[in-house]
């Protein structure tokens, strides 16, 4: 079948017949739409596409896709997807996860999938709250978060998913948000094209338990002054007519300045392909939370051999060195004697 041209599809072909059951107004709807509208353009086949998820609101995503899918157990999707990706390099595998699923119960699997550079695309819907269990704080909730389980405010310092992914040796890390379909699609496309593990953090609004968490950054009225678009090879500027920009001091620290005061040449040029993740990491630390100007886009996209291809190469090499497996020879490979 693969020698035939990929059939032309529309969003309808990629949507399953299941009623979507997220709360009305949930940010997940726009992410689902962005993905279903994008897939017809990616040149992929439905039968070769797999969505794997864990547990949580985001984890219902596979049910709504007319592809292969597995709604697995809490936090384990990256591990399950690793086994699938390594044994089936021909598939396009997406992992859909949330901040609790990926960063709390499944933190270990996430970091190891990233460092191994397994060929999967991980979408991390970050809404800074536990939605499915009705409103407890999450590993990305801000300190002092008052929820049902933290009536006096949460004590834990939150994870920054982009920083965490970079620290876990991720070869591709991006951030987008549920209010901008075009940007989401661009990030999903880039992540899908990336060979190896790609992580896309999606700021996603939970309108029931944490409404407006990202409004200061993603709201249409404030976006221009609060959202810092990252474009490879270009000076990092934002605000009306790009009046603000990002500069780096001799300590390697980034700060936001008025471009007029320093001149464009002083601005940091974004380089997502830099081997050293220092700049990407510094950018991930620019905003302490979604109430400060926040970078959006591809932080890092470097080439590194993916895990599955390397394993395939080892298999091939073993076969050419030892010949294809011969069961009778294996069973007689120890010291033998004949009676």
């Amino acid at each position: 079948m693969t020698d035939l041209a990929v059939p032309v599809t529309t969003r309808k072909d990629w949507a399953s017949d299941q009623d979507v059951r997220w709360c009305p107004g949930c940010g997940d709807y726009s992410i689902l739409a962005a993905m279903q509208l994008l897939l017809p353009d990616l040149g992929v086949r439905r039968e070769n596409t797999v969505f794997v998820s864990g547990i949580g609101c985001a984890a219902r995503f596979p049910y709504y896709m007319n592809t292969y899918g597995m709604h697995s157990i809490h936090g384990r999707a990256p591990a399950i997807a690793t086994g699938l990706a390594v044994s089936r390099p021909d598939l396009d595998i997406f992992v859909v996860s949330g901040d609790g699923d990926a960063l709390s119960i499944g933190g270990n699997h996430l970091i190891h999938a990233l460092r191994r550079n397994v060929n999967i695309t991980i979408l991390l819907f970050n809404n800074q709250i536990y939605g499915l269990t009705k409103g407890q704080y999450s590993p990305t909730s801000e300190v002092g978060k008052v929820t049902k389980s933290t009536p006096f405010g949460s004590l834990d310092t939150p994870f920054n998913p982009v920083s965490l992914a970079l620290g876990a040796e991720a070869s591709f890390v991006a951030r987008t948000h549920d209010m901008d379909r075009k940007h989401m699609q661009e990030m999903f496309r880039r992540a899908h094209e990336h060979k190896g593990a790609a992580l896309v953090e999606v700021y996603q609004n939970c309108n029931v338990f944490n409404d407006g968490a990202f409004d200061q950054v993603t709201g249409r009225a404030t976006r221009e002054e609060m959202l810092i678009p990252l474009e490879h090879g270009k000076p990092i500027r934002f605000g009306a007519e790009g009046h603000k920009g990002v500069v780096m001091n001799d300590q390697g620290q980034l700060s936001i300045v008025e471009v007029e005061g320093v001149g464009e040449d002083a601005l940091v040029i974004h380089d997502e392909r830099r081997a050293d993740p220092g700049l990407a990491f510094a950018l991930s630390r620019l905003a302490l939370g979604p109430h400060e100007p926040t970078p959006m886009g591809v932080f890092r996209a470097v080439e590194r051999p993916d895990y599955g291809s390397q394993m395939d190469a080892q298999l091939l090499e073993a076969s050419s060195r030892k010949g294809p497996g011969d069961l009778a020879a294996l069973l007689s490979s120890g010291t033998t004697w004949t009676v």
Partner: protein
Amino acid sequence: MTSTTESPSGTGRIVKTVDRVVIRFAGDSGDGMQVTGDRFTNESAIFGNDLSTLPNFPAEIRAPAGTLAGVSAFQVHISDHDILTPGDAPNVLVAMNPAALRANVGDLPAGGSIVLNSDAFDERALEKAGYSSDPRRDGSLSSFKVYEVPMTSLTLEACKPTGAKPRDAERSKNFFALGLLSWLYHRPIDVTIGWIVERYGKSPVVVEANTLAFKAGYHFGETAELFDFSYEIAPAEHEKGTYTNITGNTALAWGLVAAAQLSSVPLFLGSYPITPASDILHELSKHKNFGVRTLQAEDEIAGIGAALGAAFGGALGVTTTSGPGIDLKSETVGLAVSLELPLLIVDIQRGGPSTGLPTKTEQSDLLHVMFGRHGEAPVPVVAAKTPSHCFEAAIEAARIALKYRTPVYLLSDGYLANGSEPWRIPAVEELPKISVDFAPARPEGADGKAEPFRPYERDRETLARSWAVPGTPGLEHRIGGLEKQDVTGEVSYDPENHERMVHLRAAKVAGIAKDIPLVEVDDPEGGARVLLLGWGSTYGAIRAAALRVRAGGRQVAQAHLVHLNPFPANLGEVLTSYERVVVPEANLGQLTKLVRADFLVDARPLTKVQGTPFRVAEIEQAVLEALAELEAPSGGEDS
């Protein structure tokens, strides 16, 4: 050494012919006792003896030298006839230091022989071992034949030509001991010399030192006139065929490779290192030319998760672990029950609870694998009974998983994993065929749409659902841990559907009973009142005990279970036809509980949880006691 004949040898010394001997090599965990035992075993296997081995080592890689905690031992039983166990007690103890003597001498029956390294018995070493006086001089060894050999100094002397530093040369002393015992039992020596070259070839000095020490030990036996006798043990009669000596873990790994070859389904192993299962990961990692993919996962959970992901993609997904790993994997096993995908979970049991006894054997995970999941989550269970049987058991477990699309537990344990025995290598044509049908692609209709695929439609006979793997056009579907609607596989919270699905999953597993052999009962005269029922690694000891009871003129029946869930279809009938069922198991009576619950039979456990296998005598004794009880005048309680 049960029967003996004597004849003079050419050198004027007496050669005794014995039918069997049990030798235990004991030393510090750094002394190379496992290598020594393993080599002696190999020499014996190639010579044609039947044999059975029991390695016994501490969990610490290097416990403090010279202490009891650091003693490592390897027991091997060799004979001229079919044997079933590594022996209840050694006839010969080789002790490389006082700690090794002290830790093992209690197992040596009166009249047994001790070969000890006299160089190691200095004051400090005696003190470290907890001896307040020298056991060689205080009469505490008077019931044994003690042979004192200055192994360290003789090894150093032998290795002088190599120029190796004394500290390095001393490390060859285990080969001196091996050489000495090889002479004493007329073992072929070229096998070991060849092995030394192969094993240490990268370091010529080590090859030379080990070879010189080995030969020195051999020649010392011949010339020193310390021993009045040497011993011959004739080859055992084996079925015609080509043999190899194999451990349980190697046999299990090869069984997995074979199952993948026989079913033409690629093998994927997701595993996390754990004693005593890691050797399966090591072994399978070597066989990439068979298309075997191995992933050393970040944890136990990821190991089974990756295996399940691979199974979704059409692979034979396997994860290997021991009890602590089973605890962690339970959640994913439950998901596999719900997904109804093939998956093999291999549990090399060890002493528990918790970290327990990592290097010691136990059979205490049976109820865990039967029931250790939330919800009604039935999982078939297969248990290997001897080291070489691990090969067959792995193929059988894989067959069930692939045919019934279900997770299957395969149980082995520390004793089977590291123990070895001669194995007649089967011809590939003798192995069972495993046919696997993947669901075929569904063509699109005239409207460009395929009929909706129904992932939970079942085969009428097996109740297995189809295996529809990604990449197949027209079978796109979603599965998950939420309850499914029967047939369509859609998420369903309907109470009656849930009940139907619970019953369907149970019926699928129960139905496997139609597809497995009936349990065979060995009851030669047909008049036994007591049945010995076992499962797993107790097979050898139980079988040997039954033979001994019969040799004593009494009757006992014996049956052994390989399939523990479901049980063979005739098990209830078998159990109820005996007045008493005795179940020896290395736990507190787990199989006993199951058969009592299922069949309302008077089954009684014979339990042992000491990290070591049963002795034949312990089981023999239990049978004789059961017989005595049955034969005692009735009404004792009323009198």
